[in-house]
């Protein structure tokens, strides 16, 4: 029996060690031309870089800061089974090691960042997609509804059937804002348009971002009902929408989200069906945050990256979007001018 216990503890220890390996990949690179003493700590959500979307966009901003400003960096991931406590630990470690600013990517860090920021008043923190009420925190929020309004305009203009779809990840206010803007934009073009929408999971259901098979089923059903343009704001589940649109064939369009998914290598098989993507310029926000610290003027409070700051927009890398650009750009101008107010709910 003693032998059994030994084996069990070895197994368990191995499991923990390996689990540890998985959840915190780090990479630090030495700076080249310009150098700065600023050390940037970056905590990604879930499994970090390589999602072809949100985290990659944050990394783009970070790597730009690395080249342009010469800052040193450290990256960590929360892992998909993270808890508030484990996230707090990650952020505390970064702050303790002198990383300043510490940037948390994703709303999931809200609670943890609030606690840690209070303990390190001299460190600048930033959080993407959430608002934490602390004097040393920059809240990088995006007017996703404004960008989604533009994709709604494009979707409704491109749709021949007068029927479009929306696939959401987790059913939370953050994602509902995408839907609201999209719906409003589409209706501004065609008031009678039919819009199907479906969320992959309820609030708190973390699997919602990781179920491409379910997103595919939902998208295929929308297409079956006549939809010919679908927009997904669903993280890794979005892949299923691309698959369903590709299977439906020519005449059907997918609209990507966060980064320009037309240019993402992992989605190369589907690029001919990706009309455009709603761009959420997390890279701009991350870069601006780091630059603020380097310049000695950290961004604090609510920083709303909207159309006027180029914080959101739409991708034009697929030339198929050309015919709809005029309408989208006009809508963008109207939003900037304040003649159109976009709903977030």
């Amino acid at each position, binding site marked *: *029996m003693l032998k*059994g216990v030994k084996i069990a503890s070895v197994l368990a220890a191995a499991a923990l060690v390996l689990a540890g*390996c*998985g959840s915190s990949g780090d990479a630090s690179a030495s700076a080249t031309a310009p150098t700065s003493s600023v050390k940037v700590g970056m905590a990604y959500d879930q499994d970090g870089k390589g999602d072809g979307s949100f985290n990659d966009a944050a990394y783009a901003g970070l790597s730009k800061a690395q080249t342009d400003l010469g800052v040193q960096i450290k990256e960590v991931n929360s892992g998909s089974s993270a808890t508030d406590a484990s996230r707090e630990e990650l952020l505390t470690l970064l702050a303790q090691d002198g990383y300043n600013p510490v940037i948390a990517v994703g709303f999931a860090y809200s609670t943890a960042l609030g606690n840690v920021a209070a303990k390190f008043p001299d460190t600048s923190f930033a959080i993407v997609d959430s608002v934490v009420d602390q004097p040393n925190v920059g809240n990088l929020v995006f007017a996703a509804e404004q960008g989604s309004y533009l994709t709604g305009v494009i979707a409704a203009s491109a749709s021949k059937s007068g029927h479009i779809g929306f696939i959401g990840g987790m059913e939370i206010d953050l994602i509902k804002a995408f839907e609201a803007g999209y719906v409003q934009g589409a209706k501004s073009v065609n008031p009678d348009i039919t819009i199907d929408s*479906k969320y992959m999971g309820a609030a708190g259901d973390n699997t919602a971002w990781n179920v491409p098979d379910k997103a595919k089923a939902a998208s295929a059903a929308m297409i079956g009902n006549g939809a010919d343009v679908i927009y997904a704001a669903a993280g890794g589940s979005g*892949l*299923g929408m691309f*698959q369903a649109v590709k299977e439906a064939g020519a005449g059907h369009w997918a609209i990507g989200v966060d980064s320009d998914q037309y240019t993402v290598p992992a989605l190369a098989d589907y690029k001919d069906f990706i009309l455009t993507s709603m761009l959420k310029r997390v890279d701009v926000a991350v870069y601006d945050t780091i630059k603020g610290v380097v310049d000695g003027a950290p961004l604090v409070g609510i920083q709303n990256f909207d159309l006027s700051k180029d914080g959101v927009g739409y991708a034009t890398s697929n030339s198929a979007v050309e015919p709809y650009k005029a309408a989208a750009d006009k809508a963008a101008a109207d939003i900037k001018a304040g003649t159109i107010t976009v709903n977030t709910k």
Partner: protein
Amino acid sequence: MNIMRQQRLLGIFGVAIAILSITRTFTHNPDLTSAVTVSQALGFAVPIGLAGLAGIWSERAGVVNIGLEGMMILGTFGAGWAGYQWGAWAGLLAGIVMGAFGGLLLAIASVTFGVDQIIAGTAVNLLATGLTKFLAILLFTDVVGGGQAQSPPIKGTLPSFTIEAISSPLIALHAKDIFIVSDVAGVVAGLFFHLSILTVITVALFVFTAWLLWKTRFGLRLRSAGENPWAADSLGVNVNRYKYMAVTFSGLLAGLGGAYLAIAATIYRNGQTAGRGFIGLATMIFGNWRPGGTGAGAIMFGYIDTLRLIDSDNKNVRGLILLGALVLFVIAAAMIRTSRRATGIGFLLLGGVMIGGFMAASNFPPEVAQVAPYITTLLVLATASQNLRPPAADGVPFRKGEGH
């Protein structure tokens, strides 16, 4: 199969179709029994069913398998890793091998070393999660199309068939909205519509398991290891060898389920299994540790998930509420007949409340839409759990030579 059982199965199928048909008629919702729905439900049922079947193999031999989720994760990883390099079939094979490796690990820990089976299974889950994340960073980060958390796209897919000669006329018949007839047509058409080869393999594995474990000498010995290993040992059965075979094969099946997920998604992603190993475990319990019930449970989960997802205006959820109420009525009637009157009346009342809700509201808020499938599932599970009988020595460690 004897005549009585055949009649009973036909009866259950008949009642199910009748309930579906009534619901479809009252909600004017052809989606409930359309070919697309049935085909999609089968697709969702496959990984859950494979996990459940994997559970049957392991637990019938007396080893509780909490590690199913981990073995599935290993399967998704194997499929992603081999799939992007050598195609979907190679991915399938690698997924199976990785899953079997997970099963073997559980067997070594729990059979040879007598580690508590729950702890060993949990260790397999943790190990699989950590190992695959680690390997994904190592193997996928620098490959075009890959990333820290996902593999590059898997090359090719597995074949799937649509037998037009059968499905097309039936789909046309389904569209005619004839009571019962259209529903049978829709369900049957769904079986011949975008049918993946893996669905066929899965059904074959269910039949094979039912035959092997209940109709052969090998199966009797394997099950004896889960019912009374001491007696089996005294009769010369090598209990540990059977446990090893069963648990390793269990891992193989779970790995196949994982590989299916990755290949269907054309990609491996961390967290892709989304708890389906655990849902598989639940369907196994729901299915009373038997292939038939487990398969039915998996189809039910798949069907409910499908209805939620293909629903554009929440009308399916309304249908599901009526469906749940009708199922409750049928169960209540059966219970009152077999003199479990109190529970029966309780279900009757609950069904009545659901019918009331169905009549009162023409549309349900999305929050209800989100939870309705799970409530229905819970209710069915709760009612079914009263007659369950796990293998007698399930989870009990066996040491050769120790009496009992």
